[in-house]
């Protein structure tokens, strides 16, 4: 790389800088009356990695298309990095890297040639650094050796990587990644997570959508959950972990006695599992040690005891009313 050493960018935003993404009352009603997105107030704080979750068809992709100016909202407004979209698209979108509903490239061109075309379309970059930036992006997603092959010969995972490379042709302040792990094997999924962590460590904001909570749970600090075009919940993962209240599970040969003790301790919901050997109770505020002591004092035979956190996954299934596709 040559002499152009500039201060690394983007830098961490000032605390009072506007949100990376802000929508107010965002609504899209398609012809035919189908409401894809309904009155969405979405806020993605700068520097956050926000997971955009919801089952397929919950309005995530339509929202992302409106963020990027591809679809005109029926009503409501969009601001990216403090600027209105689509009015300021020309100045704001170069600062946004996007992957929208899967990668799409010219099948008969090589991966590199496809990236060259995208770079040629960007009026705000220096064409003299084009080759170096394309190489850097290809290396970063591990496509360096396949860069000369035609796109049509790529596997789904390679296509996805090329899409990510396209989003990283230049440093961005915000990345909007729609299902970036779709089609990737577990190794590829890990790599994408590492990539997202690197981007975040660099001070970039990332909005990453998925219908698979498990794939992005580890990299997100915030989540927004969609269901049928509406936002169901939004907040930090810690907030949600509190909502997902853990329960106490007691293994015992005397479930009825155990139930009585747990109820006495204040459990609002307590039940015996189907096998008749485990009792489950909702006791978020009582330490397990105290539960154990109470059971022993009441002469309940305890084979085992522990906390079983209701997983976030279960919470999301409950929130969205549909199971997340775990087959992915």
């Amino acid at each position: 790389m040559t002499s152009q050493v500039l201060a690394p960018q983007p830098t961490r935003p000032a605390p009072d800088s506007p949100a990376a993404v802000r929508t107010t009352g965002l609504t899209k009603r398609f012809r035919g009356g189908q409401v894809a997105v309904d009155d969405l107030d979405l806020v993605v704080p700068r520097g956050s990695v926000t997971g955009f979750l919801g089952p397929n068809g919950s309005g995530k992709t339509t929202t992302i298309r409106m963020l990027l100016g591809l679809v005109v909202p029926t009503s409501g407004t969009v601001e990216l990095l403090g600027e209105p979209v689509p009015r300021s698209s020309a100045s704001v979108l170069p600062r946004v890297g996007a992957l929208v509903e899967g990668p799409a490239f010219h099948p008969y061109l090589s991966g590199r040639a496809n990236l060259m075309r995208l770079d040629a379309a960007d009026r705000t970059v220096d064409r003299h650094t084009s080759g170096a930036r394309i190489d850097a992006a290809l290396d970063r997603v591990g496509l360096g050796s396949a860069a000369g092959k035609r796109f049509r010969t790529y596997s789904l995972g390679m296509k996805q990587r090329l899409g990510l490379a396209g989003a990283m042709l230049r440093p961005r302040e915000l990345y909007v990644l729609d299902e970036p792990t779709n089609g990737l094997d577990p190794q590829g999924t890990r790599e994408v997570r590492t990539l997202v962590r690197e981007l975040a460590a660099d001070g970039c904001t990332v909005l990453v959508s998925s219908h698979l909570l498990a794939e992005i749970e580890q990299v997100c600090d915030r989540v927004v959950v969609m269901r049928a075009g509406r936002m169901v919940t939004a907040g930090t993962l810690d907030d949600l972990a509190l909502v997902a209240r853990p329960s106490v599970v007691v293994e015992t040969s005397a479930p009825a006695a155990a139930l009585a003790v747990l109820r006495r301790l204040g459990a609002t919901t307590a039940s015996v599992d189907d096998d008749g050997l485990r009792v489950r109770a909702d006791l978020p505020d009582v330490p397990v040690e105290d539960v154990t002591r109470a059971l022993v004092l009441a002469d309940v035979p305890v084979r085992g005891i522990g906390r079983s956190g209701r997983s976030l996954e279960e919470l999301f299934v409950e929130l969205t009313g549909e199971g997340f596709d775990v087959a992915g």
Partner: protein
Amino acid sequence: MSLAEQVRLEPLRRPSRAPRLLLSELWLVFGRRRNQVLLVVLALVPVLVGVAISVSTAEVEPGQGPPFIDRVSGNGLFLAFTALAAVVPFLLPLVMGVVAGDAVAGEAQAGTLRYLLTVPVSRTRVLLVKYAALMVFGLVAALTVALVGLAVGVALFPSGEVTLLSGTTVPAASAVVRALLVAAYVAVSLAGLSAVGLAVSTFTEVPVAAMATTVVLAITSQILDAIPQLGWLHPFLFSHHWLAFGDLVRDPVPTGTLASGLLLQAGWVAISMAVAWSRFTTKDVTS
């Protein structure tokens, strides 16, 4: 490469003024195997006509076959004019219909349109760049026919001074210049059809549908142009002056019809581009 290095590749200096997107578009259009085949097919027309004339002993009366075909055996330079006259009514509109119909719809179907727009490229710029590339392709297509026609004509037949339709005799070099002018006029004649094709292309995500529609419109225009009872309509059909290039083979060149032809194309370009623009700049890109 480390992240820090990658970040340092931040764009610098002033934005590029080079028409990079147009060059990229041309590379896309001319690099596409299908379009190369179409150009080869066009180039085969003068070869086919030239060989047919040279091996045949049949006498051709003036007025039979494509214009100028009776003159080719006397002067090979006329092969360029004959070949152009032969491709203008159908083959050339077909080729332009394919390329123009594919322009926006093809990218919509492949999904590359959404990535082009989020670069971002303004929708107006997409249309202008696509249209400019179509015009270049039309010019190259017409020049291909003319140049191959000249080359094959000179190779197979005697050439030299050319007697024009008006009876004047001009040097061979002047005839070559006129052949290139005819190619240019043919290319400009396709401007309207290309704009129509581009407009159609913004209405669908199925490129084949846009191609077929454009070709059908080109044929319909010529059918209407052949119906005498619709004489009032003829001056408005984009194909009406397609064959007016014969005037360029006269001396002095009567410019009236040629000028009407250019004006007609300008009108069709203006209307079609307005339709394309109003459609494309407001449509939801959901492909």
